[in-house]
């Protein structure tokens, strides 16, 4: 049976549908010929399948007909970009202002974004981040609730036994500070701390050598990779014997990866065993049952199924219930969760009041505003120049553009500009990052290869394009083509109103930032100028880190003084730039029975006062000439008022089972925060309870010379111990670091904000001058002078800036007044700051605008009037 075989009609139809018209004939022909030739060799089915196969194989770019709808959309976008690009090139000046301004704005925003990201990433290195916490306590003294990181030793036992279900791990700890680590004759200073054996597991320490369990052996020490390298170089550190502070003998049982800069524990160069530490210090052993000795830290990891808040609530009364003696202080125990460690660590009245999180918010707001300023520039210049493009819009509309297409056009133009600005901004960020890291004390690196970074960047570009482009797009696309093309289209009186409003916003933000910066600096300067009460120049402090320092007071003092390098030497319990111990248990005649007294307590040797040149305002300094001075003490002014003792000299105060007598009153010395009032302080003569050596260098000799002499004496008397010293003036100025950092960052951002605003103003001024060329020409012909014209052109802008001042000054006053009040010792906001910033803003405006105004005013009217 012979049927006429034909190719499958469906496949033929498909081919006809997608093939380019000029190819239809030959392709159909070829495939049919193929079909018939196949038929001779195989079955119909196979030939048909083969036909399908061949037809589908024609689905190639070269053969497919271009869809007309698709083509148009694509072409239009191509056209938008082309026109946009030509516009950028045609108006180079404006484009430069636009792209430059946006680039600066985006740079600031990106830097702030990186900074915020870094702040928020703190401690996330630890795997159990959300379950870790530090145990803290609130205590109330004289009606004032203080929050403390330090807790008493028995708290750990109570939590471990009574609340076993709520905690997975607990670890006691001392405080992280510098220790001398020595191997043989070699010794270095590294900061470290002592923890219980579960601690490495809790903070998911990444071990390079050994395991996290190795801390279970009390004589073991874990070293960070860099410490191991510093001690052993390339040699094997494991199982080496070391000593900590020349007292504790330990063996290296593990090396861990250095903790990153963005962790609270970043200073842990080594981790020792709590058991070893506790057994080596008799006072620690003695405080096992003492609920009153708040000298330790306790870290916990809650069980996976328990809620941090409810556990915190549960353990609130544990100290109160366990110790009757402590009940008058109403101790409240609570958990401070790790995610809050870095950002929320300020306390007031027993409540968390934030902390760095406020800075994060503040910089976030600044970043957004700076970006907004740059976007406003873009909006202003695009709408201001809209008259020039009105004809284009009209033509496009009569050619059939619908409004959405025009909106698309202007949005794609803005995204083109934003893209260019982003490229500039990204390179600027890469260039400025080292400088920024230095300024902000960060170690941020941009992860260029991270896809997530690009997603964020892309959304950032998109967001900025929309922010900057939406208003011009909506505005320009709203023109009526008939009016535009007929030539009767004129901008109304009020079209420039939004533009003016935006200039006001720009300057309001900039002026607020400038006022803010000035006041931050004033506050820093004010606190720096505060009378300190002691001499900081040329005074050294040396911490006595090993037992070798002790019992050598007279030996060292004589030798140092005889060398001529040192004028005076003394020892004290703490550094002069910090208060290390506060004590209660003082009693005296006439003491208010309701007073729960507490004094900062400093134990000193005879020449402490002479070393620091303190000022005695009543009585006398401790003297070697009076043998009765072995029980001598001095009060500072605040302590005198606090105690309420009248006629203090010679009065007795009982403390620690001893009778002390007051020999003098010292002028207040700033030892703690320079922003807070000086604390009531007592200075007690004691040669046992000392940890620091204070040296006053001979002012007649060069510091470097004296230092080398001092070092050689120390090396001789206290061998194989690193000679680590601190200058008092440097330590003191560290107290201002964080405020100065904020001040510097804020001033950089303020300057950039004003720069962006000025760029915009410059653009607008040149636009206005250009627009009013004819008017200026006629005015000149009629006799206007350059000065009058300059005044006329500048006036409008100055008025806007003055308006911005009116808006920003009350706002800045309100915010900054609140900020200043968070410092107990603060400057007052004086009126001249506002006058100065108004004057400054007006001057900058005049300077920016005048260039264009004077240029326009100087133009020859013949040129501007000739062409019509």
């Amino acid at each position, binding site marked *: 049976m012979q049927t006429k075989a034909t190719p499958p009609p469906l496949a033929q139809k498909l081919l006809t549908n997608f093939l380019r018209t000029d190819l239809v*004939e030959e392709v*159909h*022909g*070829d495939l049919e010929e193929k079909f018939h030739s196949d038929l001779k060799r195989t079955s119909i089915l196979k030939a048909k399948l083969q036909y399908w196969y061949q037809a589908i194989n024609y689905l*190639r770019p070269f*053969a497919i007909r271009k869809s007309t709808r698709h083509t148009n959309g694509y072409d239009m976008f191509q056209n938008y970009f082309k026109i946009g690009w030509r516009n950028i090139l045609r108006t180079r000046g404006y484009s430069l202002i636009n792209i430059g301004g946006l680039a600066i704005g985006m740079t600031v925003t990106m830097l702030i974004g990186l900074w915020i990201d870094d702040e928020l990433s703190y401690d996330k290195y630890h795997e159990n981040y959300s379950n870790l916490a530090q145990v803290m306590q609130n205590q109330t003294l004289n009606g004032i609730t203080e929050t403390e990181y330090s807790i008493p030793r028995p708290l750990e036992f109570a939590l471990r036994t009574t609340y076993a279900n709520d905690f997975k791990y607990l670890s006691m700890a001392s405080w992280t500070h510098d220790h001398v680590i020595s191997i043989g004759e070699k010794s270095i200073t590294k900061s470290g701390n002592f923890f219980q054996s579960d601690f490495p597991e809790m903070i998911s320490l990444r071990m390079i050598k050994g395991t996290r369990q190795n801390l279970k052996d009390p004589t073991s020490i874990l070293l960070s990779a860099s410490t191991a390298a510093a001690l052993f170089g390339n040699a094997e550190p494991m199982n080496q014997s070391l000593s900590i502070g020349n007292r504790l003998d330990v063996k290296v049982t593990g090396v861990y990866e250095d903790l990153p800069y963005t962790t609270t524990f970043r200073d842990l160069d080594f981790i020792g065993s709590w058991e070893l530490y506790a057994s080596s210090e008799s006072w620690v052993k003695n405080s096992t049952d003492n609920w009153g000795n708040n000298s330790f830290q306790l870290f916990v990891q809650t069980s996976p199924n328990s809620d941090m808040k409810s556990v915190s609530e549960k353990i609130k009364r544990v100290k109160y219930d366990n110790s009757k003696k402590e009940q008058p202080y109403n101790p409240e125990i609570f958990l401070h969760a790790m995610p809050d460690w870095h950002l929320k660590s300020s306390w007031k009245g027993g409540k968390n009041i934030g902390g760095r999180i406020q800075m994060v918010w503040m910089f976030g707001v600044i970043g957004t505003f700076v970006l907004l300023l740059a976007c406003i520039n873009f909006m202003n210049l695009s709408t201001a120049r809209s008259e020039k493009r009105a004809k284009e819009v009209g033509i496009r509309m009569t050619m059939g553009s619908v409004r959405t297409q025009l909106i698309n056009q202007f949005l794609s133009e803005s995204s083109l500009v934003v893209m260019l600005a982003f490229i500039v901004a990204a390179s600027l960020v890469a260039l400025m990052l080292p400088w920024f890291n230095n300024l902000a004390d960060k170690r941020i690196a941009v992860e260029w290869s991270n896809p997530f970074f690009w997603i964020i960047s892309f959304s950032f570009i998109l967001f900025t394009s929309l922010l900057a482009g939406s208003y011009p797009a909506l505005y320009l696309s709203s023109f009526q083509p008939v009016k535009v093309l007929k030539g009767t289209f004129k901008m109304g009186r009020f079209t420039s109103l939004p533009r003016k409003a935006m200039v006001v916003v720009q300057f309001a933000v900039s002026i607020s930032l400038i006022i803010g910066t000035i006041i931050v600096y004033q506050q820093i300067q004010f606190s720096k100028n505060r009378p300190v009460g002691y001499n900081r120049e040329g005074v050294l402090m040396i911490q006595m880190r090993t037992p070798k320092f002790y019992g050598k007071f007279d030996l060292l003092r004589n030798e140092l003084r005889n060398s001529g390098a040192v004028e005076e030497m003394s020892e004290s319990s703490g550094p002069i730039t910090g208060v290390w111990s506060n004590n209660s248990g003082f009693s005296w005649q006439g003491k208010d029975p309701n007073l729960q007294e507490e004094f900062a307590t400093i134990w000193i040797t005879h020449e402490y006062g002479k070393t620091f040149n303190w000022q005695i305002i009543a009585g006398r300094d401790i003297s070697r000439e009076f043998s009765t001075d072995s029980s001598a003490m001095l009060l500072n002014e605040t302590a005198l008022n606090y105690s309420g003792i009248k006629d203090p000299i010679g009065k007795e105060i009982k403390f620690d089972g001893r009778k002390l007598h007051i020999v003098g009153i010292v002028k207040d010395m700033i030892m703690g925060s320079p922003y807070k009032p000086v604390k009531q302080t007592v200075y007690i003569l004691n040669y046992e309870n000392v940890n620091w050596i204070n040296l006053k260098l001979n002012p007649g000799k060069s510091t470097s010379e004296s230092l080398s002499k001092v070092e050689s004496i120390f090396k001789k008397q206290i061998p194989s111990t690193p000679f680590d010293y601190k200058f008092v003036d440097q330590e003191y100025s560290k107290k201002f670091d964080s405020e100065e950092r904020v001040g510097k960052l804020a001033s950089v951002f303020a300057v950039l904000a004003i720069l962006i605003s000025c760029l915009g103003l410059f653009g607008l001024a040149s636009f206005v001058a250009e627009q009013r060329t004819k008017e200026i020409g006629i005015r000149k012909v009629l006799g206007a002078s350059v000065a009058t014209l300059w005044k006329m052109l500048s006036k409008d802008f100055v008025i806007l800036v003055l308006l911005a001042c009116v808006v920003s000054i009350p706002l800045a006053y309100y915010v900054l007044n609140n900020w200043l009040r968070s410092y107990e010792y603060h400057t007052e906001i004086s009126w001249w700051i506002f006058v100065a910033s108004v004057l400054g803003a007006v001057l900058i405006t005049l300077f920016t605008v005048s260039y264009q105004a004077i240029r326009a005013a100087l133009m020859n009217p013949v040129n501007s009037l000739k062409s019509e």
Partner: protein
Amino acid sequence: MIETKLGEFEEVILLLTGILGEEAYAFKIADEFESQTKRSVSIGAVHSSLTRLEEKGFLKSEMGKSTAERGGRRKRIYTLTAYGKKTLAAARDFRQSLWDQYPGFATSKLYVGFS
């Protein structure tokens, strides 16, 4: 470096076009390709290649005669241009020069082996 400008597939297609002469159109070339190389190829792939080679100027084409088994449709006959021929020759010479430099198969040795 001498650019042959030709991929292996393109070179074969060009040669087949030359070989087939008057009969060089997409289906015949694909057919010849399959029978000579024992590799299957779709007419679409060959056609795409031919179009590209024409764009590059190695080939020119015009519509030829129609036959009954094509349903009365005409075919597009491809012919090599002078430039195409030159390129093919250059490709061959280049390859030959490479072979000549290749020590494992020095031509002299080959001659010795075969004579």
